[in-house]
């Protein structure tokens, strides 16, 4: 076969570039006829995430399925084609004073890709994640049938919410071609209030004090430099100018004299604490266990003598950790083992989002998954031949 | 089956808003022991289904607290429905089931018999718990509920108004009230007199008929209320200090339009007697037959708040019955104790040192539950608090 492109190091024989939902359906139907394995690509920002496909024949590039279908400003709703870069969506909405309240941790990401991996950033604390904002979805099934679920109204309980099912499914259930989103008004003012913390416990106390107060932050982030270094706690408040002033002042009282205020985000805000080629890990836990998780990350870094940088939403219990890509796979496995024990104790999970191939083959990237049996049955129903991104997802799905 | 009854049943839209206020639903979480379920059972009966023991069991389990009537947005007259149903149930009740009810009805509505029954209570209070355990549950409940016997207070037939006479009112002394809480009646008479009322207290007055009516013994109830109509023929208002009696009198007989709860009457009349401080933290408990049946909730609170130094607290889940419900606690000792325990817990959670309510049944029920919880709280009728405030003594 002629290699024309690849996904996570796995070569593909062909790349299809459909320009509409109907064309995607044609491509997928054709592939299904020959049981060709396919993987969807948007901007390609996360092709090294999850596991490489077990087999791959065709890359379906959705770059051509792009553009805003509809922006109902009065209804705070927009319908967007999957291949549209998130940034373009925001630019299109801005003149109406509106936004799709999703952060963009990896610049250039498309709407479809963001939905497929359920990516989120700091502002998930106030606005929620993809699953909370996606109100309708068009999917091309593994057999090429086009199906819609949801609609273009915010409130709708007619039928199953398949949007939630495909959000975070890594392209294993269908090809997302169109998404309807609930929008939010752009805030008139925003303020980032940051304060240093000497250690995880102090950061934890700062976070708890903000949660218990009445400042209603849009984001509450913690950033721990590698090697249990200094921590920074940053809260974002958004609203009317007078309200933001008051709340920023309240935050100053809570976080102490050393706080810094800014109208634009501090460096590294909303980005992952790793570079391309590094090991990227997602850590979740019950809210109150965030300090514990930070401590555990610091301890394991010291124990294995590797720099572990942790950053994320202390206000929701979703953190990210990064390790240098050249860390010995055995050491990475040890770190993952420690972090997994810590997240388990905090009622959460530890998932390796991305890692160099030697690491990926060494560790169980997904970890324990509740309801895996049901998930396999879902996959069997949606993709009985196993042609959609085979092997990329949990439990070898 | 009357069309009217079918219409009353048809008013229920099955929304379920009554469920959380129904004591038996709160206890058991079963549809057939909720107002909505009982109405469904009534519907079956209008459709010709026989009143089986299973069905009557669910009707008997209803406390008649009428919390559902308050909660119902559709205005279903459950009070009317259950009263009619109880009358039907009484007609089909097997003889065995009647014995205890007959015994209760031979005692409660008759003050002299109640007075006589107080004597053994003294002995009971001295019994050790092993002896108590040997008594049947119902009898034990009855005895546990009764407050320490107090000496009867004989009230004069007429108490003159203090100062200018503003009204001439009759006062219902009630069966349980007079037998077990004679102090409440004395306090009521003093408060009324202090507020300028001439208080008529005919010694020949009998029972209001509420217990009989709420238990489906309609003929007996009618006779009682007719007797009262005669005795109180010439007063401006009949003032009642027991919630159950008041709600029944307001629904039946010639006195209906002139009957007033004490608190209702005092708020309408307006105060003239000066109040003295009563420094106490008090919780006010809505007796079902005052709050739900008569809609009298604001007045007692207003009167209590007007007492200088009194800190009034609200009880959580106030709409749920304490489990007294006339003679329900005597007939259903287990569940009644459970309801009493819930209420005691809620009352104690307010941190109040005094519990005020306007019904002798509630006072006895909650007092027993507070004792079971190993706690203590002082109890008073609204009249006693007002009396203490007017006289400048501690309640």
């Amino acid at each position: 076969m002629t290699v024309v492109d690849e996904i996570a190091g796995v070569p593909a024989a062909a790349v299809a570039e459909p320009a509409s939902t109907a064309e995607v359906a044609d491509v997928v139907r054709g592939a299904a006829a020959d049981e060709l394995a396919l993987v969807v690509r948007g901007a390609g920002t996360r092709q090294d995430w999850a596991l490489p496909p077990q087999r791959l024949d065709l890359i379906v590039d959705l770059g051509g399925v792009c553009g805003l279908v509809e922006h109902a400003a009065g209804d705070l709703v927009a319908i967007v084609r999957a291949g549209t870069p998130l940034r373009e969506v925001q630019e299109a909405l801005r003149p109406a004073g509106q936004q799709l309240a999703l952060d963009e941790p990896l610049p250039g990401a498309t709407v479809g890709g963001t939905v497929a991996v359920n990516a989120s950033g700091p502002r998930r604390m106030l606005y929620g994640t993809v699953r909370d904002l996606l109100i309708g979805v068009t999917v091309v099934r593994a057999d090429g049938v086009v199906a819609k679920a949801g609609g273009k109204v915010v409130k709708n309980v007619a039928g199953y919410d398949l949007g939630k099912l495909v959000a975070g499914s890594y392209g294993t259930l269908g090809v997302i071609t169109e998404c309807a989103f609930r929008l939010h008004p752009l805030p008139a003012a925003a303020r980032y209030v940051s304060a240093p913390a000497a250690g995880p416990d102090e950061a934890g106390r700062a976070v708890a004090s903000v949660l218990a107060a009445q400042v209603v932050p849009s984001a509450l982030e913690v950033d721990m430099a590698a090697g249990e270094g200094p921590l920074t706690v940053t809260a974002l408040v958004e609203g009317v100018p007078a309200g933001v002033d008051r709340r920023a002042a309240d935050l100053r009282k809570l976080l102490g004299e050393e706080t810094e205020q800014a109208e634009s985000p501090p460096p590294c805000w909303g980005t992952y604490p790793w570079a391309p080629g590094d090991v990227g890990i997602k850590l979740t836990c019950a809210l109150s266990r965030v300090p514990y998780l930070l401590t555990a990350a610091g301890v394991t870094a010291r124990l294995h003598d590797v720099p572990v940088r942790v950053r994320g939403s202390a206000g929701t219990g979703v953190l990210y950790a990064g390790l240098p890509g050249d860390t010995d796979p055995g050491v990475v496995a040890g770190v993952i083992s420690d972090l997994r024990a810590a997240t388990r104790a905090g009622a959460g999970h530890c998932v390796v989002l991305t890692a160099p191939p030697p690491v990926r083959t060494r560790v169980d990237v997904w970890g324990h998954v509740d309801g895996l049996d049901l998930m396999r049955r879902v996959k069997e129903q949606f993709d009985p031949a196993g042609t959609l991104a085979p092997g990329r997802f949990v439990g070898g799905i | 089956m009357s069309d009217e009854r079918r219409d009353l049943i048809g008013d229920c839209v099955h929304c379920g808003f009554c469920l959380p206020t129904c004591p038996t639903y709160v206890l058991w979480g079963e549809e057939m022991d909720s107002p909505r379920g009982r109405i469904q059972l009534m519907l079956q009966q209008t459709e010709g289904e026989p009143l089986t023991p299973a069905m009557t069991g669910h009707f008997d389990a209803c406390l008649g607290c009428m919390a559902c009537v308050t909660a119902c947005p559709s205005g279903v007259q459950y009070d009317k429905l259950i009263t009619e149903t109880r009358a039907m149930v009484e007609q089909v009740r097997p003889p065995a089931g009647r014995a205890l009810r007959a015994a209760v009805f031979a005692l409660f509505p008759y003050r002299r018999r109640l007075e006589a029954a107080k004597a053994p209570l003294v002995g009971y209070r001295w019994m050790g718990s092993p002896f108590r355990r040997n008594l049947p549950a119902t009898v034990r409940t009855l005895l546990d509920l009764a407050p320490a016997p107090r000496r009867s207070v004989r009230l004069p037939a007429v108490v003159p108004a203090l100062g200018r006479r503003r009204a001439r009112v009759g006062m219902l002394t009630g069966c349980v009230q007079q037998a077990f809480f004679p102090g409440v009646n004395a306090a009521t008479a003093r408060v009324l007199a202090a507020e300028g009322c001439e208080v008529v207290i005919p010694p020949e007055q009998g029972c209001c008929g509420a217990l009989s009516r709420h238990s489906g013994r309609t003929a007996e109830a009618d006779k009682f209320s007719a007797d009262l109509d005669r005795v109180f023929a010439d007063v401006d208002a009949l003032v009642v200090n027991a919630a159950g009696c008041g709600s029944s009198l307001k629904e039946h007989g010639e006195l209906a339009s002139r009957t007033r709860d004490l608190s209702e009457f005092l708020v309408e009349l307006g105060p003239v007697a000066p109040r003295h401080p009563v420094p106490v933290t008090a919780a006010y408990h809505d007796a079902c037959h005052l709050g739900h049946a008569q809609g009298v909730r604001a007045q007692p609170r207003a009167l209590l708040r007007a007492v200088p130094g009194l800190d009034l607290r609200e009880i959580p889940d106030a709409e749920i019955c304490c489990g007294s419900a006339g003679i329900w606690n005597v007939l259903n000792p287990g569940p009644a104790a459970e309801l009493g325990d819930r209420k005691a817990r809620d009352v104690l959670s307010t941190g109040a040192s005094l519990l005020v309510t306007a019904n002798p049944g509630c006072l006895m029920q909650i007092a027993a539950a507070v004792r079971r919880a190993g706690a203590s709280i002082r109890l008073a009728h609204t009249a006693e608090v007002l009396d203490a405030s007017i006289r400048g003594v501690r309640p």
Partner: protein
Amino acid sequence: MSIGALATAMHSRLAEDQIITDRARLRTYECDGLAHYRVVPGIVLLPRTAEECAAVVRACVAHGVPFVARGSGTGLSGGALPHADGALIVTSQLRAIREVAPQDERAVLEPGVINLQVSKAAAPHGYYYAPDPSSQQICSIGGNVAENSGGAHCLKYGFTANHVTGVQIVTPDGELVRLGGRAPDAPGYDLLGAFVGSEGTLGIATEVTVRLVRLPETVRTLLAAFTGTDAAGAATSAIIAAGVVPAAVEMMDALAIEAAEAAVHCGYPAGAGAVLIVELDGPAAEVEAQFAAVEEFCRAHGAFEIRIAADDAERALFWKGRKSAFAAVGRISPDYIVQDGVIPRTALPQVLTRIGELAREHGVRVANVFHAGDGNLHPLVLFDEAVAGQAERAETVSGAILDICVEHGGSITGEHGVGVDKAKHMPRMYTEADLDTMQLLRCAFDPRGLANPGKVFPTPRLCGEVPGRRKGPNPWHDAGVEVF
């Protein structure tokens, strides 16, 4: 399938009073909040633990008996309508609040816990549970999960699906499985998200972990009276367009106001053709600034009277009229249909005009109550069954209203669910392929089709071969991958 055999089997697992088989008692369960559908269940079972619930489902599977779950029985789409040859599994005795964990902003609940009780339990800690269906004083959390219940305050805070972070369910196979949990973003498919709102067709929730929200610093509520719904709608549009996200914007028309007045004496301004209840909550400084703007928008669009709730008691009175409106309509009409449809909010004026025309054409009255902020309409079609032909005409109008919603790109249900009532309307909103795709999920969970059959979908999908238990080893484990 045999109810008798199931009953016998259940006697060895449950106590006597957890099994109902006599007809009089069974009939008290013959309908939920949508009383014009009535089916007497074959048997009613009242489990008191998750394990008992799983045992009940397993017994149903063993005897091939379909089962329907029911919480408080307040649903308005007949979602808990029993199956005549099936078991009704009632969760009203599974009602413990297992844990209130304000430090994690979570509460762990049994499914029979009443919605409002959660907020009551969380209040001492300064938290509450945000989704507030009008029936919140009685509806159960399990039912909320099944229906993805909304409520007035969902405009700002979202629906049940946005507030449930974990469930333990009994699958239609009778297995206890956990989906999600206390932490966000559990790995794998978001089966939790798919389960919420699946109307009892994917299993029964036996434990629910919900998000608790900090009680707002300030709540300001105003009641604005307008001459008609158009003006009230225009005021709503202006508020939203200005970038204000109120906690709630509710509208009632003249007929709905009349009903509420009759029922709860809420004292709304006399002569109002429409009232708007607008509530803002959040940090005091934000609320104050935006509240002034909201008041101004109402005046600018013709509000002839604006009342601002001075205290919690007055605020409660504003809401009392709104929250009891459905049942209150019983005071002004012997019979009525509560409809639930959604339109893009900006289509409100046209849609209301069309509903008015429809009502006149068919000689019935329609009272309108709605969540104006998100376009969720609740037209109440009034009729008198005693008058020949009225019930049919009301049914026609009610159905036509849904057509109007779909024409405008809306939904046939915003919060009451599809249930048995609207299954027939699903093809108006979705293609055969759409519905077929949804049923793939159902086949994955319930290949035998025993969980709440006949609901949601107009026609069941054949699931093909019923899969056995396939807990295959993780291929990565075989490949020598280190597993932790």
